[in-house]
């Protein structure tokens, strides 16, 4: 097991190196650039040239890349030009990361606790009303664009009904910061109103973002339960006279969850894409919003780090999923 983890970590380093190279060249091939973004359209060519020299952008790309990597090894990732101007890009990532973790955690939890029971139920009542309604719901979840759903939720529940906050992560309550996970901070410092405010700010973005994993987890659960229900070992369990509860939990769900687990890991990628849209709609200060901001400002340093770290998170989450998989499935563990 340890060897497996180490091997995956080494692979991760390779992934990061290759990705950083590709990103570096790709970002710089985009039209526009930080000079335009910083100086605006009316800057004179002399001014532009001066800034280019100052930032080292007049050098060949490979020189720029090597310099970048050299500095990166010393923990300097370049300073942000747009998101938090002047701050090191990695610190921008760190300040934004907890917000997105909270959002993603809420969304995935919401998706899982609704989609798995519903998927099981739909499979058991295949072809009946519950099944058909949930299939339509999951199709809607896939078909409706996340940003549209986000706008809709914001318009009804925040703007029109005024039940929930329109934007941001927390009301201005002067909360103490400990970990930058706002809910956790509120609990640690016993400023419970801070936690409550953070939760309120999370509800709508989480629902919007959960629509994608919900639909996928629902469909995989349903298909997987349908498969498992026909397995011989479920018939054996029935022949033993076990209670419906034991058969459901130990014999059906435990097996049916294996494919679901893999899918949840892979959904993290889709979740990051969705976070860009959701966070932008709700002005939620997380990684997604920072990505959008830095992209429009061609803030290379920040963009680079955010995308790289997203890849790292994706790989790490899938490593955790693989470990969990081995815990649940003895065939993987013992072979």
């Amino acid at each position, binding site marked *: 097991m340890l060897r497996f983890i180490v091997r995956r970590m080494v692979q991760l380093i390779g992934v990061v190196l290759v990705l950083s190279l590709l990103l570096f060249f790709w970002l710089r091939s985009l039209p526009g650039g930080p000079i335009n973004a910083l100086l605006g359209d009316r800057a004179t060519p002399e001014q532009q040239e001066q800034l280019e020299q100052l930032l080292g952008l007049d050098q060949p790309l490979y020189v720029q890349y090597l310099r970048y990597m050299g500095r990166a090894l010393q923990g300097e990732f370049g300073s942000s030009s747009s998101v938090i101007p002047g701050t090191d890009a990695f610190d921008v990532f760190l300040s934004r990361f907890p917000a997105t973790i909270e959002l993603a955690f809420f969304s995935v939890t919401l998706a899982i606790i609704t989609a798995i029971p519903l998927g099981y139920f739909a499979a058991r009542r295949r072809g009946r009303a519950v099944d058909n309604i949930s299939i339509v719901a999951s199709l809607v979840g896939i078909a409706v664009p996340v940003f549209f759903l986000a706008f809709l939720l914001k318009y009804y529940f925040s703007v029109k009904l005024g039940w929930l906050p329109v934007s941001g992560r927390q009301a201005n309550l002067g909360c103490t910061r400990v970990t930058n996970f706002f809910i956790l901070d509120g609990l640690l410092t016993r400023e419970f109103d801070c936690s409550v405010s953070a939760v309120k700010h999370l509800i709508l973005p989480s629902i919007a973002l959960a629509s994608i994993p919900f639909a996928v987890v629902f469909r995989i659960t349903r298909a997987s339960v349908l498969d498992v229900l026909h397995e011989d070992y479920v018939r054996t369990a*029935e*022949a033993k*006279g076990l209670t419906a509860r034991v058969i459901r939990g130990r014999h059906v769900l*435990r097996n049916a969850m294996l494919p679901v687990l893999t899918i949840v890991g892979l959904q993290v990628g889709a979740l990051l894409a969705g976070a860009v849209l959701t966070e932008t709609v709700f002005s939620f200060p997380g990684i997604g919003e920072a990505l959008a901001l830095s992209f429009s400002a061609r803030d290379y340093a920040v963009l680079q780090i955010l995308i790289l770290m997203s890849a790292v998170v994706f790989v790490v989450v899938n490593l955790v999923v693989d470990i969990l998989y081995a815990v649940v499935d*003895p065939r993987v563990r013992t072979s």
Partner: protein
Amino acid sequence: MAYSSTRPVADRDRPLLSVEDLTVTFGRQGEEPFRAVDGVSFTVRPGQTVGLVGESGCGKSVTSLAIMGLLPKRGNTVGGRVDFEGTDLLSLGDAELRNRRGKDLAMVFQDPLSSLNPVVPVGLQVTEVLERHRGMSRKAAMPVAADLLSRVGIPDPNRRVKDYPHQMSGGMRQRALVAIALACAPRLLIADEPTTALDVTIQAQILALLKELVEETGTALIMITHDLGVVAGLCDEVNVLYGGRIVERGPRHPIFREPRHPYTNGLLDSIPRLDTVGERLTPIPGSVADNLPWDHACAFAPRCSQPVEICTQTTPDLVTNGDRALRCHNPVEVPR
């Protein structure tokens, strides 16, 4: 509490199980209904071993699943009676049936590779029956489970209880399934082709084990097989099934020595015999696809070695004569 002493002392002549006119029809609304089991009746006395023999697709598994109440909830209709110790199992509700399955009557299935849950340790798959029907705690049930595994011939049972199914061979898994089925000392065990998926040498071991265990515990056994050779060493009585109906029944030796139905005769010709080494095995020509409908003919007539005109015009009745029964217009006369 010894398992065997708690049983009511059964009258050996009163049937333990009496299947009466069992019919199972498949087909949802709008589909052509298909009668997989068509008026099957037979009895099993306490401790008796009864064979249910016939080619693949003749309704053996469906019969056994109907007895156990394990047919799919939708898409079929079951008729007739399944009388077990005075209760009609077909009239029981889901909860009552669950209370009896695994305790009073148990089943071993064909494929040991897929019949055990791959993500649950074998020990737990044994103890869960004990927990369910004997009200034991898992802790108390574990040594009992190990004991059961050792009784079915699994070496090192205390270690094996922690194993997962994929760590065991096919033969071991089938032994484990037998242990599970016998865990609560049922009065009736149904074994549906328990050796078909196994190697020949392992087949013989499992059969010997089943024989030994039913003799030792007094459990009645319904042995389902397509192989008359399996029946030969095991069954007190044999029911031969064709196209969902019983075509011949009788005690083991008379059936083997003097089969009356051409189908039984054909089955006997298609199994290897030790006393006729070198003789060709002759399979029965045709397949079940050639069957005539039982409603107005003998279903077997198109494949029969000695059909007469009436066979394709009138349904033969199952006629009982002493301890034998036969459904045939033109029976085989010559003893083998």
